[in-house]
């Protein structure tokens, strides 16, 4: 089986990255009659977030997307991925926040445990490899948040560090790496 294509897309808020990512896969779906799969990692933590999720859902309703809500543990989705699927994951930043702070309600967040996030990182890369061994395309969407003064909060600095580390690794793994700026597409890497 041919390895599917991995695409990494990042950009600022409202840069049009989700729309671009969706369009990319919809075109493929029409051309080759393939299934569209959407993995959503955002959770409705407040009304604004709920509205945001609703808007994304409406945007996708024009096409036949199969949606999986997966805030954490991406690997549990693996049995649901079919050969030839066009998979979109939106987005890495919400997933990272969910994983990094998982367990905070019991006073034992992952971020405070030695080796916890490292283990999740390994699992993530394995999951991505497995997805592209089945799917024909896997698009990962993330955010540009690292061009500002380091936060005064240690937790936020750790988050930034992890996000940068994941981005570097994913750009390295990706066949295509794209930065979006207000709807403009900058292709940093394409093979």
């Amino acid at each position, binding site marked *: 089986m041919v390895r599917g294509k991995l695409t990494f897309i990042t950009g600022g808020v409202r840069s049009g990255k989700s729309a671009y990512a969706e369009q990319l896969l919809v075109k493929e779906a029409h051309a080759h009659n393939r299934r569209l799969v959407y993995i959503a990692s955002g959770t409705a933590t407040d009304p604004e977030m709920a509205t945001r999720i609703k808007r994304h859902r409406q945007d996708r309703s024009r096409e036949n997307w199969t949606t999986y809500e997966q805030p954490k543990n991406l690997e549990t989705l693996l049995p649901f991925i079919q050969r030839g699927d066009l998979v979109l994951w939106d987005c890495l930043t919400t997933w990272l926040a969910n994983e990094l702070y998982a367990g905070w309600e019991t006073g034992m967040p992952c971020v405070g445990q030695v080796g916890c996030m490292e283990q999740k990182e390994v699992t993530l890369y394995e999951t991505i490899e497995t997805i592209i061994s089945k799917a024909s395309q896997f698009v990962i969407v993330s955010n*540009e948040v690292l061009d*500002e003064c380091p936060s*005064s909060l240690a937790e936020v600095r750790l988050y930034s560090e992890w996000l940068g580390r994941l981005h570097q690794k994913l750009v390295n793994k990706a066949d295509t790496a794209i930065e979006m700026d207000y709807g403009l597409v900058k292709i940093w890497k394409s093979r």
Partner: protein
Amino acid sequence: MHVFIGGAHNGKRAYVKELLKAQGRTDIQWVEGRLPLPGTEPVVIAGIEQWLAQCGLSEEQAIRRMMEAVHNRDAVVVLTDIGRGIVPMEADQRELRDICGRLYQRLMSEADEVTRIWYGIAQTLKRGEQDENLYENGR
């Protein structure tokens, strides 16, 4: 002078280290979060934003010190872009962003080469000024 710029945790230092290794220049002096004394030996300067935050100098003095440190020497400067986030609540953080921005502009205008690093990938923003300057200076 060769300036490298990019957001935090984008792999800037790793890229520069790889480049220096490929050029066989692993013994080059590397200073982090401070300025080297003015001199003629090659140097890598990184973490200027940390130096700026605690050096206690006025903007004018800071820029002068910086330019003296890189003057007339083979310098590699690693800059962290901190100017594209939400405006900070704290006045001193806002001031730091402004000073950084103006210092970075000055460094980039004087640099022979400017490279942006995006998660380990390099893009040339500027190159070849040196030759033009040499020509202008009639040397």
